């Protein structure tokens, strides 16, 4: 069980800000592979990984990072603060 959060246009495409996901994936990439086959809206949101960023437990991370021990995964586009 892992909390998955979506922000900005990722949130809009998937249609919800967060959900709890049952996953056996070992890496972020594995989790994405599971989500993508669920429904078209996920496939759409994750269609271009180069335009996505991921945070694990609120720290920027990478798609090949392991999920072991992680409680919260967040997907979002590159940040545009400041």
């Amino acid at each position, binding site marked *: 069980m892992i909390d998955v*959060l979506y*922000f*900005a*246009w990722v*949130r809009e495409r998937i249609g919800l800000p967060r959900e709890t996901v049952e996953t056996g994936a070992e890496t972020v990439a594995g989790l994405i592979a599971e989500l993508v086959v669920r429904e078209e809206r996920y496939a759409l949101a994750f269609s271009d990984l180069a335009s996505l960023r991921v*945070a694990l437990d*609120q*720290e*920027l991370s990478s798609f090949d990072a392991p999920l072991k021990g992680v409680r919260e995964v*967040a997907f*979002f*586009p*590159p*940040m*545009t*603060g*400041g």
Partner: protein
Amino acid sequence: MRLTLQEAAFDPGFEANDFGRGVAGAGAIVTFTGLVRGDVTATSGMVIEHYPGMTEKAIAAIMEQAAQRWSLMDSLVIHRFGKLAVGEPIMMVATASLHRADAFLAADFLMDYLKSRAPFWKKEMGLDGETWVTAKDDDEAALKRW
């Protein structure tokens, strides 16, 4: 070191003076204020989304880095989220140091990192539709300066 995340508008001049009063002995204070650009006839402003929890941690880490790299007497970051009108301040950074180079460099650094490493996303509310602001390659390249 003070970090404020808020939905409400703020007054940059008031905040700058308040910050200045707090740092006795400083010789240099630099402030940066980012404002909602645009023409009121073409846009009704912007909405800023952020990642509560991570935002605070990410900004605190950036401020901590600045404090380690430069000789700062204090630093301040205020960043808004939610709905903002054209012309309103989005955020501000202030740095105080004995000599001017530290305050300038640290403020510049804080801005570059806040732009690309703090989880905020801006959406422009055009009169003919909404558009997520896209990150510029320049912003990522700016981090290589440091």
